[in-house]
């Protein structure tokens, strides 16, 4: 239950809507009870009066008030139900949009290394878990509250017959309420959580299967992989079926309890009628009203049967948006305009031997630096340290810009534009991908950069030009083209310093050479650090440092 509290907080701005929804829900129910109860009372009164009239005894019955009441309840029920549903669903979807945004914001505030969770798992959290919370507002909280009110109404109806009947009804419905909410939730908890967890595993497996589609298809393994996914799927179905069965039993319990309540009222009521303590019409009113009462409970079993799913989602969401990693206050960072400097840096990944020891270099506008080393020598680690993504365990890093404290102190916020070793493009147009580097870039500036990376001609030949769709899972760009788009994006950002990690991966030598020629001109007055596996793959730099050994 504690897991759910944080998710009740964003309710506050929506209190008005939520209350309106609950009131409409209750109105619908009361109108239903009123319609049946009043109809029963009117009909029985008519029968009694009719019998008296038939015997020639003078009797009167006001037919207008109950008639009008019946029509009123009939209309009220329809209208209230419609608006209840529209209002409540709209509120929930508004809430979900709020929650999604909150969660995404929380994730983007994480320094990247603290957030190593697999991205597809996060995707599932954002959509699936947040959506599972609609259960919390729409199907759990409000209906349970309404059912509680209804239980009291049922007991009140019982009072019309006898105190004993009222107590019996109260016990019966209270018991039912406990069974189809708390008890059912408890019994199903294990099944539903198991199911949700397995769904997440399956989602990951599906995504990795398709990510590795080529390798698997080449090895002729797609059939067996498909069979494996289906087997996992059956593992999801089993707990679901058990939970469904429990929910069906709970639903049966609701029917039985309502009918048993009616029977209790019938028996006790008949005693009361025959002893003259109760009129016949009043008895029928209570019996038929109870039919309406039953409606308040029918929606509960499916919702509470899935309680475990809601709690499980809330728990995972709590973990994701949980306490933020405190910003590093250790004084390993200095700032000096135009300079990107590493002094006596030592770094090791947790539980592994040191990747970098005692590394020092200083780059500025007049002095660019190249770092070479074989794979595994720690080049990318140094690049990440210089981009602010990793904090060294010892030594001092001097960045060219003091970061805005409201934003994560990485990349351009530290005055560093960084091309990571792995090409990461977005599933958007070429233009949108480039604008990530500089959202306000002019067309002129963009074409100039495309010239630098030798893409201007290629893009001009594409029929959609800058608006060509690229990125995503398997873009139609070749590896070299994608790399040059990423390079162009990095060059677009107007930062004092720029870090290029293997800028020419996949780019043929001739093209790479031409880009190398143009870079110094484009980067005039900016500080450059480039990293590569050997001198050949470096742009022109003033000093080359070899890492490792």
């Amino acid at each position, binding site marked *: 239950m504690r897991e759910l509290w944080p998710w009740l907080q964003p309710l506050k701005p929506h209190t008005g809507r939520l209350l309106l929804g609950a009131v409409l829900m209750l109105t619908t129910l009361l109108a239903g009870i009123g319609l049946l109860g009043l109809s*029963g009372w*009117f009909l029985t009164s008519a029968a009694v009066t009719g019998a008296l009239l038939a015997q020639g005894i003078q009797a009167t019955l006001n*037919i207008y008030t109950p008639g009008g009441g019946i029509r009123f309840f009939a209309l009220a029920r329809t209208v209230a139900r419609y608006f209840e549903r529209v209002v409540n669903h709209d509120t929930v979807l508004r809430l979900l949009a709020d929650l999604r945004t909150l969660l*995404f914001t929380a994730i983007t505030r994480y320094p990247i290394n603290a957030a190593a969770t697999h*991205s597809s798992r996060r995707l599932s959290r954002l959509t699936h878990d947040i959506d599972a919370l609609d259960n919390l507002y729409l199907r759990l909280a409000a209906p349970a509250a309404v059912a509680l009110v209804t239980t009291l109404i049922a007991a009140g109806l019982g009072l019309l017959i006898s105190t004993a009947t009222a107590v019996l009804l109260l016990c019966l419905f209270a018991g039912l309420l406990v069974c189809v909410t708390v008890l059912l939730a408890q019994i199903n908890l294990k099944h539903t959580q198991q199911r949700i967890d397995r769904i997440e595993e399956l989602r990951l497996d599906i995504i990795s299967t398709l990510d590795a589609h080529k390798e698997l298809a080449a090895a002729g393994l797609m059939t067996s992989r498909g069979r494996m996914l289906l087997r996992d799927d059956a593992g999801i179905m089993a707990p679901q079926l058990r939970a469904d069965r429990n929910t069906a039993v709970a639903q049966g319990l609701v029917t039985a309890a309502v009918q048993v309540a009616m*029977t209790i009222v019938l028996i006790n009521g008949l005693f009361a009628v025959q002893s003259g303590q109760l009129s016949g019409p009043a008895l029928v009113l209570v019996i038929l009203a109870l039919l309406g009462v039953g409606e308040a409970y029918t929606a509960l079993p499916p919702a509470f049967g899935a309680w475990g799913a809601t709690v499980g989602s809330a728990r995972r969401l709590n973990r994701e948006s949980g306490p933020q990693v405190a910003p590093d206050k250790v004084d390993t960072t200095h700032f000096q305009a135009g300079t990107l400097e590493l002094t006596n840096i030592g770094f090791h990944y947790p539980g592994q031997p040191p990747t970098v020891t005692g590394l020092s270099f200083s780059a500025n506008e007049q002095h660019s630096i190249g770092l070479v080393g074989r794979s595994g020598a720690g080049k990318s680690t140094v690049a990440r340290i210089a981009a602010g993504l990793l904090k060294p365990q010892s030594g001092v890093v001097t960045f060219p810009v003091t970061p805005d404290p409201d934003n994560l102190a990485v990349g351009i916020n530290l005055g560093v534009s960084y091309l990571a070793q792995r090409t990461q493009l977005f599933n958007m147009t070429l233009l949108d991908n480039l604008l990530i580097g500089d959202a306000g870039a002019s067309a002129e500036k963009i074409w100039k950069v495309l010239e630098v990376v030798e893409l201007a001609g290629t893009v001009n030949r594409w029929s959609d030009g800058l608006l060509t769709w690229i990125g995503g899972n398997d873009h139609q760009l070749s590896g070299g083209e994608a790399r040059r788009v990423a390079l162009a994006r990095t060059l677009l950002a107007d930062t004092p310093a720029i870090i290029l990690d293997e800028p020419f991966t996949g780019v043929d030598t001739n093209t790479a050479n031409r880009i190398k020629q143009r870079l110094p001109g484009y980067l005039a007055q900016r500080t450059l650090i480039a990293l590569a596996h050997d001198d050949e793959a470096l742009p022109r730099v003033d000093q080359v440092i070899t890492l490792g050994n």
Partner: protein
Amino acid sequence: MPATTDSLAPQLQENVAAATDEGPPARPSSRQWLADLGTHARPLVLAAIAAGLVAAVATIVQLGLIAWTIDQAITHSSALPDLYPAIAGIIVAIAVRTLAQIAKDTAAASASQAVRQEVRKQLAQSWQHKGPNGMDSDSPATHASEWLEQVEALDGYYARFMPQMLLSVLVPVMILLVVFPLDYIAGGFLLLSAPLIPLFMALVGMGAERLNQQHFETLGRLSGHFLDQLRGILTLQLFNQTEHATRDVREASDAYRRTNMKTLRIAFLSSAVLEFFASVAIAVIAIYIGFGLLGYINFGPSASLTLFTGLFVLMLAPEFFQPLRQLSQYYHDRAAALGASEQLISRLQPVTDTPSPTAARQTEAPEALSNQVEIEDVTVAFSGRGNVLSSINLAIPRGSVIGLAGPSGSGKSTLLNLIAGFQQPTQGRATVFGAQPGYNRFGWLGQEPYLYHGSWAENLRLVAPEASDASMLAALDEVGLRERVDAAPTGLHAPLFESGAALSGGQARRLSLARVLLSDYDLVLLDEPTAGLDEHSERMIINALQLLADGQRTLIFSSHHAAMLAFADKVYQLNEGRLDNA
């Protein structure tokens, strides 16, 4: 970065264009498709319907006994003990009703399960049928959401809607058969109001269906969009674009709410129509019977109305509408299933008549044995980019090592994809040792090798599930990664990290090569195996490939690197999609 809607628009146009261009033959309607799938669980659906009928009969009996008991007690002042048998009957009826209802729900849940499993089986087959290049346009997350959420959306149709569809006809008919002999005017009211309901619902439902489909498209795109943003979160953080991305997420969520509400408003309208008819019918019947009992109505059967018949009819009136009301609540399930099925059907439709060769492996035999990889006059065109390959002719003898050189974008990757069978030629023909490309298993090393977020062993077993620990260690030794694994405390079972954060690019490539070494392939295709690698890694890879090139296996690779190309028996030069005559 512009707003989501902007960036989604071209994709939408693409989808529309794709849909009209292809015009897949004989596509079944959603309704037909859902009905056909139902046959996979027919006995269970029938069992659910039978149980529903038993519950309905028990309900009618129970209500009749209640009405009779009240009538006896109030108008005939019967002594209570005389009524005990009737009360016992009520209790029995309640028990039967409850048990039948439970049986109905359980059977229906099993039916739905059987159907969903069938659909997933078909989905898995279609992935294989289409091959990797046939399904690129959507992200793996979209496919995962299809397999999970969209197939789940069929649940309500089979677990609730389908059995209820028949029950919503049978049960009201049963009730009419009881009401008519009691009072044909009251029966007439019910009969009159009933046919109006499906009519109105159909009118309302038609709109809901289209909207629901839209809803699922939005949901699928939302998933793809999120994954894309999350995968690129490092880039967003580095370029301080997270606020923009958050705004995107906000807008996408709001757009989702708006489409969703459109669907829901209409879905709710259909149930409101029903609610209205049910309420009015109860009200009219109550007033009619009341007046009849008072003796105000002097025609028809009203004179013979008693408290028993009146009460019985009044209590049956809500039961008459109950199955229809439930059906309308499940109408949402139906609309959801129809919306999901639209997308599932088009996913299950073949893109082209010829399946991806990797899928045909089990079915088609090779045409003739040959000892060559043959490419005859092949042209490949991509929309918007023109010819990526133009009239390529190539014959590669078995056992040779072939290098493909050329500037980036010259068509090297496309040629490799063609030989792999991932890419269909727009024109011309390719065969591998006499068979269709991809007919036989082969080794593939792509430009961005896929790293699974599990352990070293899991990564290696991805394409060689049978590999032993010893052979995995040997393969890692070949590519120079053995030390790294030995250094890890749990060895082969130590985890790698996502996207190889803890592995350098060169190490990731070498790991991927180790996978290829684990199996004995006749053909190995490598797309830029040494791009971006230092000399050490390059040497490691060339050494490992030298072991592979034993005169039996055929190796074909693309590369820019002199060292790599020097290793080939023959190098073909590609330029703007054409083969230079070397």
